[in-house]
Structure formats: C-alpha cells, structure tokens
C-alpha cells in the first residue's frame, strides 16, 4: 500500500512535533521504554482482572477478548475540539429534526431533498412510529459520531451512529487507566475531564421522562444479557449511573406501565436505556421470536408511559444511504451549511455511480448500507483479485445494498511498540447526549486505532485497539 509518509501524522506533523503533542513528547522522551512496556502489561492484566472484555460474534468458542489498549494518548487542542463539538451539535440536532419530520409531516421528502424510496424501502423505518412524538421530542438520546481526520483541521464524518452506539465505557476506562499509570502526566498537562459522563447520561435520560412520571424518574438499562458482546459496557454504565441493569424477563406491564421485578414486588420504570435492537424490543410488534424484549412495550410507549432511549426507528437516520444526504439534511433543518464535512459517497443504487464503483473497485471502500462493526465491507486497496471479483458479483446482484467511498488517507497517531513509537491509523467517536435541556458532548471520545501496520480498519472485532483521547484545556 501507500507509504506512511503520505498520511497526516497527528503527532509529528510535517517536520516538527505538532503543538498539542509538544508537552507529551517532552515527557515521553524522558521515559525508560522498559518501564513503559511493563506499564503496558500491567494495564492489560488490569483490564482482564476487571473483566473489561467483549465477546466476538461468529466465533465458536465465544472466547472473551480484550480490546487492546495503547498507552500513547490521542491529543486534540481545545480549538480543534470546539470546532468538532459545534459540528457534532449541529449534526445531532439535524438528525433529531429529520427523525421527527420523517415520522410526521415528511416535509423533507415533499421538498425532494431526500428521495422517498430511501425511506419506503428502508427496513429501519418503523411504521409504528408514524404520527407519534417521543417524550421531550427526543429521538436519539445518545449519539456516537464517527469522525476521521485526513490533514491539519481536515475532519470528516464517517458515520452517524443513532441506534445504540457503544464504546463509551472504553472512553471512561481508558482515562482511568491513564490516570492510574501516569499520574504525573496529568499534573503537567491539563486535560479536560470525561468522568462526568455517567452523571450526565443519567441526568439527560431522566430529563426525557414521560409526563406520567411522578417524582424522581426511575431509569434502567436494558441488556440482552451476559453473552452480548457489549455486556461489560451495559453493566458498567448501569453501575456508574446507579440504576438497575435489567433483561427482558425482569420486566412486565403492570397497570399500563413498565415495571421491573424486584425482591419486594414490581417497581415502575420511567426511562429505559435499551441496548437491544429495535427488532428485538417487542415480540408483539416486531420479531415474534425475540426473547430479549418486553411483550407489549410498544403499546405502553405509544400511550406515553415509558421513554425508550434511543427511540425505536432511529436507524432510518444513520444508514449509509441516508448518510450521503446528510449535508442537505443539516442545511434543510438548521438553515446553515454543515460544519463537518461528509466523505464523498457513491450510491450504488444509481446506475452511473455503480458503473464508476465497479470500474474503480480496487481504489474504493465499499460498505453495506445497513452494515456495522466493519462486517461485510471491502477495502479495495487491501483486497486480492479474487476478493474484488467476488465483491463485484455481490454488488451487481444487489446494488442498492451498497455505497462506496474513496479510500481516505486517514491520519495516524503513534502507538507504543517494543521497537518504539510506530504510526497507526485512527478514528474518533465522540459521544453526544440529547435531552430537552440541550446537547451535551463529552470532550474527546473514543479513539480507535488499527493496530496492524498500514491497516485502515479500526473496529475492535477486526483487530482494532483503543487510546485515551485528550482534549487540552485552553
């Protein structure tokens, strides 16, 4: 593939260490590498003992894995962050306005900004949500916006995760680990804290309680159970917020409200932060085979007696075909140009685009419209001839299932290896909380890093790791 020098290095810049990394670099150059290696091993042992692990789907022995943690932080200046967070704020508001519109008057379709087929043929569009406004008019209570950087100040949004974005526990644990390992660093370099996230999450969720709620809202986290790949995160968030972690079979409907089975009888819940997909939420409304959800919860929801976060049907805003219209969507609802740029996207459903994509497959990244987690995607430059041919066949069979994007020259941040620092590609997932009180974005987010040299795939399921993300104080 291309040589590393062609990629923007967030630490080294063109010829000198970039401003946000100057202090860190000075500290790093004074460190004994043997000590750092030891620290890295300690961190791994700590993660294992604490059980910060995830299960990999599609592996027979269902072994629990660690997401590798790299001890070199990814550092952003306060100015870079201000621009990013303004852009995310704008985008998140637009996504919420879009969802409200799509499930109500559909003005954006009538205006011809987004083609109606994208909604009509979209499995994530839920007819049950039509004409219904969720409590507080909030659809996406938690959003994780995937962002990549290609050069100085050049940020692009790669994906808007509006369903149930995960990874925030790693953001928090990574910072805790860094504080434990290198307390001296934090006394020298002022980094904006992230530890308020659980408190803010609870507050934000409580602020979206339905009007039927009396007194202090009861919040609960709904998990598919201990075998889910993100179970650790579910229990971590419930624990940090001080709320119950429930499964479908803990819940039932009592007097038209959702209630959880406690040792002292059933207790009403006002807000459910659900970490199960729409399809499994209610066997009476969606997948009848689902054992994970609560039969009848959609009726309770539509009667305005429970808040579900994120709202069902938000997936219609974050698939990769809708993504290509995001700049127009932002402009339509906010009246402003989008602050954050989109990556150029070819919709394979369009004949011209499909032809272009097939002709240039080896240079493009092709993704499934509804895919996630790095599954089912093709990275053209890294694919063999056979893989390209196989994928071309899939594309021709179901073009509307795919979009394609140019291979971005993702920025790099060094990771710590036994041979010293080595550049690796990164992305960034900041987390935004939405409530009637406003949008709250934790400074930084989760930096994912492709640990394999030259690799562009940062997903944990595909060999990616994580870094602590620092936003410097002014």
């Amino acid at each position, binding site marked *: 593939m291309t040589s590393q020098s062609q990629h923007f290095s967030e630490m080294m810049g063109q010829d000198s260490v970039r401003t946000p990394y100057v202090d860190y670099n000075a500290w790093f150059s004074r460190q004994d590498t043997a000590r750092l290696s030891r620290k890295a091993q300690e961190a791994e042992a700590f993660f*294992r*003992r*604490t*059980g910060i692990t995830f299960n990999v789907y599609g592996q027979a022995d269902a072994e629990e894995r660690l997401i590798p943690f790299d001890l070199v932080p990814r550092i952003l200046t306060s100015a870079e962050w201000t621009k990013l967070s303004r852009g995310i704020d704008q985008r998140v508001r637009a996504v919420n306005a879009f969802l409200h519109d799509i499930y109500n008057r559909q003005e954006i379709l009538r205006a011809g900004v987004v083609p109606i087929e994208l909604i009509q043929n979209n499995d994530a569009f839920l007819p049950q949500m039509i004409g219904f406004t969720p409590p507080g008019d909030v659809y996406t209570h938690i959003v994780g916006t995937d962002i990549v950087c290609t050069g100085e100040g050049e940020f692009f949004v790669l994906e808007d995760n509006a369903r149930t974005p995960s990874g925030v526990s790693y953001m928090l644990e990574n910072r805790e680990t860094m504080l434990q390992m290198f307390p001296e660093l934090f006394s020298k370099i002022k980094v904006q804290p992230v530890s308020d996230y659980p408190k803010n999450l609870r507050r934000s969720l409580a602020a979206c309680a339905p009007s039927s709620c009396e007194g202090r809202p009861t919040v609960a986290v709904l998990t598919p*159970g*201990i075998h889910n790949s993100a*179970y650790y995160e579910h*229990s*971590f968030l*419930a*624990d940090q917020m001080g709320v*119950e*972690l*429930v*499964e479908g*079979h*803990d819940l039932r409907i009592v007097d038209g409200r959702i209630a*959880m*089975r*406690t*040792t*002292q*009888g059933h207790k009403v819940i006002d807000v459910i932060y659900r970490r199960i997909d729409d399809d499994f939420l209610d066997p009476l409304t969606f997948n009848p085979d689902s054992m994970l959800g609560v039969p009848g919860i959609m009726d309770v929801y539509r009667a305005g007696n429970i808040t579900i976060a994120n709202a069902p049907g938000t997936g219609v805003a974050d698939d990769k075909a809708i993504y290509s219209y995001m700049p127009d969507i932002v402009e339509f609802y906010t009246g402003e140009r989008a602050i954050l740029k989109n990556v150029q996207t070819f919709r394979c459903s369009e004949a011209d685009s499909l032809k272009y994509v097939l002709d240039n497959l080896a240079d493009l990244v092709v993704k499934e419209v509804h895919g996630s987690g790095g599954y089912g995607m093709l990275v053209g430059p890294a694919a063999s001839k056979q893989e390209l041919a196989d994928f071309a066949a899939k594309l021709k069979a179901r073009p509307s299932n795919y979009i394609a994007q140019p291979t971005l020259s993702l920025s790099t941040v060094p990771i710590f290896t036994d041979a010293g620092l080595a550049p690796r590609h990164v992305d960034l997932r900041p987390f935004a909380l939405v409530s009637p009180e406003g949008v709250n974005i934790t400074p930084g987010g989760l930096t994912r890093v492709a640990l394999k040299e030259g690799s562009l795939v940062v997903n944990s399921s595909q060999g990616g790791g994580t870094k602590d993300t620092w936003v410097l104080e002014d």
Partner: protein
Amino acid sequence: MLGKTAGGLYWMFRGLERAENNARLIEAGFRIALTRSTNTETEWKSVIVTSAAQRGFTAKHSEFNSTNVIDYLLRDTDNPSSVLSVVKQARDNARLVRTALTTEVWSAVNETWMLITELLKNPVPDTDLPEVLSIIRQQSALVRGALHGTMLRNDIYDFCRLGTFIERMDSTARIIDVKYYTLLPSPSLVGSRMDNVQWETLLRSVSAHRSYRWAVEEDYTATNIANFLVLDRRMPRSLAFCAGQIVENLDYLAEEYNDRRPSHDMADRLAARLKGRDIHSIIEEGLHDVLGTIISDVGALGAQIEKDYRFNY
C-alpha cells in the same frame, strides 16, 4: 433490588461454597487413598455420593478410582457441580449482578475464574493435586474476605450469605449422612484403628480435624463427633451453626423489607429442630432419618427463598 439480582447473588455464593466443599471432599478422599493401599474404591464412591453426583458419574465411568473421581469432581464440565462448572457459574452470576458487587468482590471472583480455568485446563497429576486444591480454597477465602471487608450490610449481603449457608448446611448434612454408619455406636469397633481413620476423614472433609481437638478436648468418639458436626454452634460448618446463620440473615431481610415471608417460618422450624437438642436423643431417633429430613427441608427452604424474593418470576 431486582429479583434476578438476588438470585444471582444467592447462586454465586452457593457455587463458590460448592467449589470449596468439593475441594475438601477430594482432599479427604485423596488422603485415605494415600494412607491405604487397597480398597479405596468404597472411599471414592462415598466422595461421589456425598457430592450428589452418583448418577452423572456412573453414566460416564464404571470404576470409582482416584483418577476418575478427581477428574469428575474437579474438571468435568458435564458435571454441573464440578469445580470448573461451579466456578464458571459463579463468575457468570457475578457478571449478571455486577452492579451489586464492589470492585473488590467482582475482581476476586473474576480472578478466581481465570486462575482456576487455567489450573484445570488439563488433568491434574497427583503431584500437583494438593497445591491445586489449596489454591481453590484460598481463592474461595479471597472472595469471602472481599465480601466481608467491602460490602454494605444490606439485602445484597444477606442473599450472598443465604446462598453460602444453604449450600453449606446441605453439604455438611450429606457428609455426615454418607458416613453416619461410622458414627453409630458399635461395640465391636469402638476405638479400633478403622474407626479412627474414618472419623478423621469425616472431620477433614469439613476442615475440622484440628478444631475438634481444640474445641472438644476429648478423643474421637462417635457421639462427640456427631455432636460437634450437628449441634456445636462454635463450629462454622455444623448444622446448628448454618441454621442459625440462615435465620439471622432472613431476619435482617425481614427487618429491612419490613415483611416476613413463608421462608422465615420454615427457617425457624429448621433451626428449632436442632436447638436445645441432645445428640443422644438424635441418635436414638435415628441419625440417618434426621439427616434425611434436614436435607429435604434445606432444599425446600432454598426453593421457598427463591419464590419469596422473586428470583425467577
């Protein structure tokens, strides 16, 4: 607290207690096998019977020898009561109730699972057995220590303790029951070498061979040993002690919830069966029958607790 959480805590501590009890049973059996050259089959068979694993064992093995029994009780994942199975189950339950545990308790359970899974990856050779068994017991002590040292004394704690003592009471009752015939006064055998070995094994399988000497200060006799294991409230694995603890933890729950449930009365009746009793009258009544009733009452009490506190529905 969620009913499911109460159930997870209860079963987590039943599992940890069972792992520890299995380790003790194997240790006692292993010792007999070492000190006797022939006829260890009866001994290993009684170990299997005590851990209530006879049906599963005989489905896989025809011979009650040390290799088969040790492997079945330690490592066999087909045996839901093997150390490997119960430690995994305890850890799964700990994950399920993670929000109810302190970091110390959770880390101790998680570490126990990692360590024991690794230790029991391959069959354990006789040379390593004492060390493996001692690690299993140490880990169990580590979890218990974390529980005592870091957890609030609230309903969470009570459900943990209920699991521990229901499991322990059941286990002690089974151990005595399997060996009860050695406790029956039989003029021809009293004081013989045979009796002494059997009694010491019995005491070892509840880690009481040393505390017996301190507490009872008398030679091994059938009635003294029976009294110590059934009625002595100083002995933390005796039936009377377990029953007292169960009543106490249920009383705390009644106080915290301001509500008495059917399980409270059942526990009181169970404790009353042992309170103020004289071991001679129990032996006269028939030790085996008394133990049989206790085992079934403990089982019923466990089921009633599950129901009263809505573990499952």
